[in-house]
């Protein structure tokens, strides 16, 4: 695919092209926090930031999502029969998404879409209608550890276009046919531009200081890790809150509930989390993950052992560091995984 140049003074024209028949979103500064919002011009979007506070997963997997509706009348010919919500009506572009977050979507693709039965159309529809334009990280922050979990500050996985900030311009790398269509008309990059991007990539990789080692986690059996003594310490301070899972780009557990209001009814899914006691509770009162330790362990085992075992070695973590930054009691995933690997 082609390597193009996007001059910084041509950004507005580029963005205008993007939002002509699509909804365009980008990271913006809101109340001192970096979050996603619709943008129309280049100066509305952020171009120099570490990452958004929360992951962009809710573009594809909203925290609350209506799946179906029904007429809440028994006896009516149409009553009580579930009708799926319509699909997304406009395609979307996510601009300046970080490579770690894009990689996370590809991990989630492996879970949401597996075969004819495990084929989450809600996820899939939004994925197929969304174009991802990534912005490479030249300055990873101290909590980033993407390179140690198979991602990269300049990673291209899951992206349609990768932008690399070269100072006065961006190197725009088309990665898919969708991406090619967006940047195909831009001027071609020179050899020097690509060399500079490669240098920045190397420099960015070098700035990732801490990380996780996975070799022993990979080679050990599930039960050896499960029974390891470390969990007794990890769980001690844990609050069993949902912060780590809700800010995580790969956490994807959910609950489905019905709601009614007079003759209207809907089936909604909401994010749920394995830290919650209620999550696995049986109707009989039996709870297979009845203790805090069980629940804390589940999160780490799921990401670093269960997903890799089941999904061809793919790790359920992209090293974005959000949980490290936001955990109210500083449970640091890097430390936990290194303890698993010890």
């Amino acid at each position, binding site marked *: 695919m082609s390597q193009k140049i996007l001059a910084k003074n041509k950004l507005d024209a580029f963005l205008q092209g993007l939002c002509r028949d699509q909804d365009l979103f980008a990271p913006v500064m809101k109340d001192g926090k970096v979050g996603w919002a619709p943008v129309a011009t280049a100066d509305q979007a952020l171009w120099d930031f570490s990452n958004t506070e929360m992951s962009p997963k809710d573009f594809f997997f909203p925290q*609350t*999502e*209506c799946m179906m509706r029904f007429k809440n009348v028994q006896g009516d010919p149409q009553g009580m029969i579930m009708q799926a919500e319509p699909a997304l009506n406009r395609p979307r572009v996510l601009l300046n998404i970080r490579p770690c977050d894009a990689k996370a979507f590809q991990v989630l693709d492996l879970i949401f879409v597996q075969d004819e039965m495990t084929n989450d159309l809600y996820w899939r529809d939004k994925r197929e209608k969304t174009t991802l334009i990534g912005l490479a990280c030249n300055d990873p922050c101290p909590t980033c550890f993407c390179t140690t979990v198979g991602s990269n500050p300049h990673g291209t996985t899951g992206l349609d276009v990768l932008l690399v900030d070269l100072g006065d311009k961006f190197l725009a790398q088309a990665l898919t046919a969708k991406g090619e269509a967006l940047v195909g008309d831009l001027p071609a990059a020179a050899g020097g531009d690509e060399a500079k991007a490669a240098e920045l990539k190397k420099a960015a990789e070098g700035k990732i200081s801490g990380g996780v080692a996975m070799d022993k986690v990979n080679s050990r059996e599930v039960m050896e890790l499960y029974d390891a003594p470390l969990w007794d310490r990890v769980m001690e301070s844990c609050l069993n809150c949902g912060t780590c899972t809700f800010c995580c780009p790969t956490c994807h557990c959910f609950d489905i509930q019905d*709601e009614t*209001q007079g003759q*209207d*009814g809907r089936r909604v899914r909401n994010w749920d989390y394995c830290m919650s006691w209620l999550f696995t509770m049986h109707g009989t009162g039996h709870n297979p993950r009845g203790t805090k330790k069980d629940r804390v362990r589940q999160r780490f085992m799921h990401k670093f052992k269960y997903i890799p075992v089941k999904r061809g070695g793919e790790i359920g973590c992209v090293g974005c560091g959000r949980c490290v930054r936001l955990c109210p009691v500083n449970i640091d995933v890097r430390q936990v995984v290194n303890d698993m690997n010890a």
Partner: protein
Amino acid sequence: MFARRRFAVLKNLLEYVGIEPGRLHFSWISSAEAEKFQKTVAAVTEDVKALGPAQHMIKDIRKVA
């Protein structure tokens, strides 16, 4: 009597977040005071009707997200 304290705090709290005062009522009625009960219920019904449908704390599931 315990309820009196709890309701005092709850009533203040609900008014504080913007729920109309008329939506929460509290009365002492003995099981022997049928007439007071009848009158109170009628009065409360009147008050709430006058306020109209609640604007807050109502989830409209018909709304498309």
